[in-house]
């Protein structure tokens, strides 16, 4: 992490409201190259909407979002996106490498014949995520963990400066949660890509995050996990007593209308 460099992502006085309900307001956040930020909070607090705003798919109510000095806009190749783990339909006519290729040239017109440069890029990122051995397998026959690995390859294939991850560990077992989050961490260090990681459970990534953005009840806190994930800070944020326990390196938040394994929002963008 290099906080002295200009931020890759800069959110200024941003607010988002749907009708009378304000999800967040006055949000200021500068994300440094290679910085790992966890976006936490209960359901319906606008975690996914924040990612959508960075993707240019959600209009802010006020404020602005800039990527390396230019306003965030739809289809920006400097942004990578990893969705919730949703198994692809059986029979989907794509092999793992074809799904990755879509990350490089999927928005271009024409028949699905990848250029030499695209093929080389696909080989490179599959190698980087350790998915070369199943590159030619139908993607729907891969396990959830393998598919998520392929998705990481797809997301980094366009050399993004910011990687947005929307609950990428959802419905993975503990071992896969660990390996997938380690892989994301590895890649952000290798490529100095900033990561914005939306999750309902911070524990699989606790050892990796630089800062936490905690959204709750229309307010937010930004800081290191040690600064934010505390009983007094979260109680103030929620406006009701909240207990944060730490046991064996895991953090459990109790109260505030959520348990650690709260129900999460369904669906992606």
């Amino acid at each position, binding site marked *: 992490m290099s906080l002295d460099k200009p931020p890759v992502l800069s959110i200024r006085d941003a607010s988002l409201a749907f009708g009378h309900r304000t999800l967040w307001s006055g949000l200021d956040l500068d994300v440094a190259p290679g910085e790992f930020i966890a976006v936490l909070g209960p359901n319906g607090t606008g975690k996914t909407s924040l990612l959508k705003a960075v993707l240019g798919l959600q209009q802010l109510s006020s404020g602005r979002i800039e990527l390396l000095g230019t306003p965030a806009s739809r289809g920006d190749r400097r942004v990578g996106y990893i969705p919730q783990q949703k198994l692809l339909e059986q*029979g989907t*006519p794509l092999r793992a490498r074809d799904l990755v290729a*879509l990350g490089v040239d999927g*928005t271009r017109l024409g028949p699905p014949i990848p250029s030499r440069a695209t093929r080389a890029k696909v080989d490179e990122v599959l190698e980087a995520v*350790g998915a070369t*051995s199943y590159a030619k397998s139908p993607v729907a026959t891969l396990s959830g*963990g393998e598919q998520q690995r392929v998705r990481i390859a797809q997301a980094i294939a366009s050399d993004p400066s910011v990687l947005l991850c929307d609950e990428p560990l959802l419905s993975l077992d503990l071992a896969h949660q660990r390996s997938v989050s380690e892989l994301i961490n590895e890649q952000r260090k290798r490529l100095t890509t900033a990561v914005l990681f939306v999750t309902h459970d911070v524990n699989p990534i606790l050892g990796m995050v630089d800062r936490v953005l905690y959204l709750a009840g229309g307010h937010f806190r930004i800081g290191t996990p040690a600064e934010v994930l505390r009983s007094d800070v979260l109680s103030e944020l929620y406006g009701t007593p909240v207990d944060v326990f730490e046991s064996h390196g895991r953090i459990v938040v109790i109260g505030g209308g959520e348990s650690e394994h709260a129900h999460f929002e369904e669906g992606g963008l």
Partner: protein
Amino acid sequence: MDWSILFDFTDYGELLALVRNSILAGAVLGIVGGLIGVFVMTRDMAFAVHGISELSFAGASAALLFGANVVLGSLAGSLVAAILIGVLGSRARERNSIIAVLMPFGLGLGILFLALYEGRAANKFGLLTGQIVSVDNPQLSWLLLISAIVIAALLVLWRPLSFASVDVDVARAKGLPVDALGLIFMVLLALATAVSIQIVGALLVLSLLVTPAAAAMRVTANPILTPLLSVAFAVTSVVGGILLALGGGLPISPYVTTISFAIYLVCRIVGRSNRSSRPRRLAPGVSR
């Protein structure tokens, strides 16, 4: 039973010359059906095809009744249906109920128009179950023109449309206009359905727009091989069906549907043995 009604190949050469147009139309329809079928499968639109074809049937029978161009009539019907389904049914559940509501209405309208029609009975039946080898020249030009539009549009949009079909969240995040692509697809599907009805009939359109692609997807996941195989299967079914039908007194459609079903069966069996013979590998570091 007189088997010559199924197969009788005397005077085959002369017959062949008569149906040259139909064979050409059949081959082009095979290409259209095979290509668009891949997206019908990946977008889970098989039921929509059926719904569109019933309204297309209503349009065609209205055209028959009022002496208008039948191809244009079925085109109007399928466009109305496809746009309704596309605009109102963005979610699968909503979509299915809209189709289920439209389908009997379309079929009922079609039957009404046909009941009022006093022309040749074969024309009536043909719209539902397939025309007998009588594609005349003006009709053929319409079929070829519409087919050419569908094929060209699919080739140009192939990559983004695949992206939006199999991986919609990431496609949207990458800035693709997935909703607009969905509507464009529905229009192309309407065009493809309207032309398919002219050969196989409204009730059997699925054998052209779904079965070949479903068969291809059983044996390969290669995104280039899938449409090629699907087209090969569809062309074989239609052209093979027309050639076989010539030798008997039956409509084309049973031959077309039987060939396409047989191909599907073979692909299922081949696909299964492929799948079971491939050892399940575990990724290093993933499944410990």
